[in-house]
C-alpha cells in the first residue's frame, strides 16, 4: 500500500489528469447511459401509449347500437395506427355492459386489483409475450341499451423496446463524441499547463552553474510561487557565497599583518643576544599572540554570525534573555575587572524573531568594544521603543568622533568589513547580525551625553495570551 501511494505521488501530471478524465468519463458515461435508457423507455412508453389510447378511442367511437345490441365495425384506421409498431402483435377485447366479451381475445386478462377499471393503461401479456394495454370506456345510454362498454387494446412491446434502445444508442453516440472532445480538451489543457514548467526546467538546465541571478517571474501565478522560492534560495546561496568569499579574503588580509609581525619578533628574538632585550621581545610576542587570538575569536564569531544569519531557523527570542545571558557569562569581569557593568532590563518581554546565538555574539562584541574604548559605567539592556525591539550597550564616554562614526557607517554600507582594528570587526559583526534579521545598527550619542551602540529590530507581534 505505501508502495502504491509512493507510486501515485510520482505519477506524472499527465497521467493524473488522464486518470481523472477517464474516471469522470466512466462514471459519467454510466450515469448518462442509465439516464438515457430510462428516458428512452419513458419516451417510447408515452409515445406508444398514445397510439394505443388513440386506437382504443377510435374503436370505442365506432360502437353503435342496433336492435338493442352493440354493433362494432372495427375501424381499419385504428389498426393502421397500431401498425406504426410494425412488428408488434395486436390484442384487443371489447367487453359489453354485462361483462361478456363482444369480440376480440378473451385471453386478455384484466388487471384484478382494480375494481372500478377506469380508463388507463396496464401491463400484461399477450400469447406469452409481454404487452401493454389501454382501456377506454364508452358509456351507452340508448333506450334499448344502457351501460358501459370497455375497449381494451394492447400491443406487444417490441417497438417500444427498440425505440428505447434507439434513443439510448443515439444518446451514447453523443456521449462518446463529447467524451472524445473532453479527452482532446484535457490533452490541450495539460499541455498548456505543463508548458511553463518545461520552460522553467529548460532555462534552469541551460543556466551557467555560477549564475545565481533571479529567474524571470513572468510565469503563471501557481508556478511563480516555485520560481520565487527558487529565487529566494538562490539569493541566499549568493549571499552566503559572497560572505564566504569576503570572509576568506578578510581573514587572509587580517592575519597576514600580525603573523608577519610575530615572525619578525621571533626573528629578532633569535638574533638578539642581550637577555634583557630578549625578555622584552618575548613580552611583545605574548601581547601579539594574545591579540591574534582575540582576532581569531572575532573572525570565527563573525563567520558563525554570517552562517547562522542565513541558515538558522528564526524563533521567538526575548532580548532581555540575551542581555541577561551576556551579563551573567561575566566575560567582562575577567577581561576588564576594573570596569563596572550594569544590567538594565524591564519587566515586559522584548520579543522579536531571530537566532539567539547570533544576537549574543553581536551583543558580546558591542560590550567588549564598550569595555575597551568606553568609560565606566557600562550598561547593557533591552527595551521596546516605538514598536522596535532594541538591545543596546551604553558607556559614559563620548564614543568615537563624528567623522569616525560617518566612516564606520559608510564602510558597513559598502559591505566591506572592518579591515584594521579589531574594534571595527566587532561592529562589523553587530552590523551583520542586524542586517541578517532585518534590523539596523545605530551608533549615537544619547541626550544624557552617553554613547550608545544599539541593535534595532522589528518587534514580534505580541503573543496572544
Amino acid at each position, binding site marked *: 500500500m505505501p508502495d502504491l501511494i509512493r507510486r501515485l505521488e510520482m505519477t506524472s501530471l499527465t497521467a493524473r489528469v488522464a486518470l481523472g478524465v477517464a474516471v469522470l468519463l466512466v462514471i459519467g458515461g454510466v450515469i448518462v447511459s442509465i439516464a438515457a435508457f430510462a428516458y428512452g423507455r419513458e419516451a417510447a412508453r408515452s409515445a406508444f401509449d398514445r397510439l394505443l389510447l388513440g386506437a382504443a378511442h377510435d374503436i370505442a367511437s365506432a360502437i353503435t347500437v342496433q336492435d338493442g345490441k352493440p*354493433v*362494432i*365495425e*372495427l*375501424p*381499419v384506421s385504428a*389498426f*393502421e395506427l*397500431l*401498425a406504426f409498431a*410494425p*412488428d*408488434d*402483435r*395486436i*390484442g384487443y377485447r*371489447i367487453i359489453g355492459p354485462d361483462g361478456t366479451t*363482444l*369480440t*376480440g381475445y378473451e385471453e386478455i386478462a384484466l388487471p384484478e386489483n382494480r375494481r372500478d377499471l377506469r380508463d388507463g393503461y396496464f401491463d400484461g401479456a*399477450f*400469447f*406469452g*409475450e409481454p404487452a401493454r394495454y389501454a382501456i377506454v370506456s364508452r358509456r351507452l345510454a340508448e333506450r334499448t341499451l344502457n351501460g358501459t362498454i370497455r375497449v381494451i387494446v394492447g400491443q406487444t412491446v417490441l417497438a417500444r423496446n427498440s425505440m428505447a434502445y434507439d434513443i439510448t444508442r443515439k444518446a451514447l453516440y453523443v456521449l462518446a463524441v463529447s467524451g472524445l472532445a473532453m479527452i482532446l480538451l484535457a490533452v490541450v489543457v495539460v499541455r498548456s499547463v505543463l508548458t511553463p514548467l518545461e520552460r522553467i526546467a529548460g532555462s534552469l538546465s541551460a543556466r551557467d552553474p555560477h549564475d545565481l541571478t533571479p529567474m524571470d517571474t513572468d510565469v503563471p501565478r501557481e508556478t511563480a510561487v516555485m520560481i520565487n522560492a527558487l529565487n529566494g534560495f538562490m539569493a541566499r546561496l549568493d549571499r552566503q557565497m559572497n560572505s564566504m568569499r569576503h570572509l576568506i579574503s578578510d581573514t587572509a588580509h587580517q592575519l597576514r599583518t600580525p603573523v608577519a609581525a610575530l615572525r619578525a619578533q621571533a626573528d629578532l628574538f633569535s638574533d638578539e643576544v642581550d637577555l634583557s632585550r630578549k625578555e622584552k621581545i618575548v613580552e611583545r610576542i605574548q601581547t601579539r599572540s594574545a591579540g591574534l587570538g582575540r582576532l581569531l575569536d572575532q573572525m570565527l564569531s563573525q563567520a558563525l554570525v554570517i552562517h547562522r544569519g542565513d541558515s538558522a531557523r528564526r524563533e521567538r527570542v526575548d532580548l532581555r534573555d540575551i542581555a541577561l545571558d551576556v551579563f551573567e557569562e561575566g566575560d567582562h569581569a575577567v577581561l576588564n575587572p576594573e570596569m563596572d557593568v550594569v544590567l538594565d532590563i524591564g519587566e515586559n518581554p522584548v520579543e522579536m524573531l531571530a537566532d539567539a546565538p547570533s544576537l549574543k555574539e553581536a551583543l558580546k562584541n558591542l560590550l567588549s568594544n564598550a569595555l575597551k574604548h568606553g568609560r565606566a559605567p557600562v550598561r547593557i539592556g533591552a527595551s521596546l521603543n516605538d514598536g522596535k525591539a532594541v538591545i543596546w550597550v551604553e558607556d559614559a564616554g563620548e564614543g568615537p568622533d563624528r567623522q569616525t562614526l560617518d566612516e564606520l557607517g559608510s564602510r558597513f554600507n559598502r559591505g566591506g568589513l572592518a579591515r584594521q582594528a579589531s574594534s571595527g570587526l566587532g561592529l562589523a559583526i553587530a552590523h551583520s547580525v542586524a542586517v541578517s534579521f532585518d534590523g539596523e545598527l545605530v551608533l549615537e550619542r544619547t541626550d544624557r551625553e552617553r554613547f550608545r551602540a544599539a541593535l534595532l529590530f522589528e518587534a514580534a507581534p505580541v503573543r496572544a495570551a
Partner: protein
Amino acid sequence: MKTITPSLRILLTGFLVLLNCGPVAAQEMVADFGPEGAGQTLVLRSTTDIAVFGPVVETFLRARPNVRLHYEQWGSNELYRLSRSDCRSGEAGADIVISSAVHQMVQLVNEACASDYRSLLTEELPGALRWRNELWGITREPAVMVYNRDLVPQGDIPQTRFDLLDLLRPSDTRYAGRVATYDIEESGLGYLFAFADAQEASTFGALQESFGRTQAISTCCSADIIRGVAEGQYLIAYNVLGSYAQGYQQQDERIGIVLPSDYTLVLSRALMIPKEAGQKPLAEAFLDFLLSPQGTLALRTALLISPLLEAEDGNEGESLSSTALRPIGLSPALMVALDGLTRETFLRRWRATFPGP
C-alpha cells in the same frame, strides 16, 4: 372440385375425428411428391390447387432426392380453423402453411402460431410482404374481371369498376343476373377481396348496391366462376383471382381478362412455418427456394407471380400505373377483416345485397 380420394379418406379418418371441430374439417385433395420412403417428409397445407402448385413443388424436390412432400389442399376457412387448433393444442400439424386468405394468416401469426426465420432472401422482401419475420408473401396475383369474349361486345368490356357500374345501371340491362362474384361467406379469399374493396374505395358500396339490384350471382370457387363465364352462364365475373383466370385462358380462349385500371388489388399468398413444425429447417429451405430466382421462375411459370402485372407489351396484359396496383399488405390491420363483430356487420350488409336462393 370437391373430390376426395376414398382411400385417403379412410386413412385420415382417425385424424379427422380428432380435430373434428369445424363443420367441414376435411382437406379437398392430397398428393405426395418425391420418392416413397424418403428420409424426410415435409407436410404442406395450402389453399392453392395442387395442379397449380405441383410444378413448383417438383422443381423444389428435383434438387432434393431425399425429401418427400405431402401436399394437402384445403379450403381457406378450414385451413385456418385447423391451423389454429393445432396451434392452440401445441400439436405438430403442417410444416408449412400457405393460404390465400392472408388475413387469417395474419391472425395466426398474431396469435403466436408461427416461428420466425430470417435469411438474406426474406430480408429482401418489401415490408408489405413480410410481417414479424414470421409471415411472407410469396406470390403476386391480381384480382381481375373476367368476361366472355363472344357474348360481351368489345365496347362493353369494362376497364374500370365505373364501367361495370355503367353496364349495370340501365333497368333493362342484359347483364342483370349474369354477373358473378365470390360468395364471401363461403370463401375466405372472396371475403378478403370484398373487404379490401370496401377499404379501398367508395365504389364498392355502389357496386354492391348494383349487384343487389341486378341480382348478381354469388357463388363459390374460382374455377366454377371462370368456367361459368367461359360457357356463357355468366357474362362477367368480378374479383376473380388472376392466376386461375389466366391458367384457364391458356386452354380456353373464350374468356378475356381485365385488370381494372382504377385500381387492381394484388394478393400475395402468405406462407408461415407453424411453431410446432417438425421439419423447420426443411420448411425454411422451401421458403428460401420460393424466394430464390429459381423458385420465383417456377412460381411465374405457374402464373402465381402473375405475368399480367408485368406485361408491358403483352396482348392481354395492360400496363397499369403502379399507383393502380394495390397490394394487400401483410399487416395487423388485416385482422379487422377477421374480427367476429365486424365480419358479422359486413356480412349482414352483404346478405342484404344477395338475399340468397
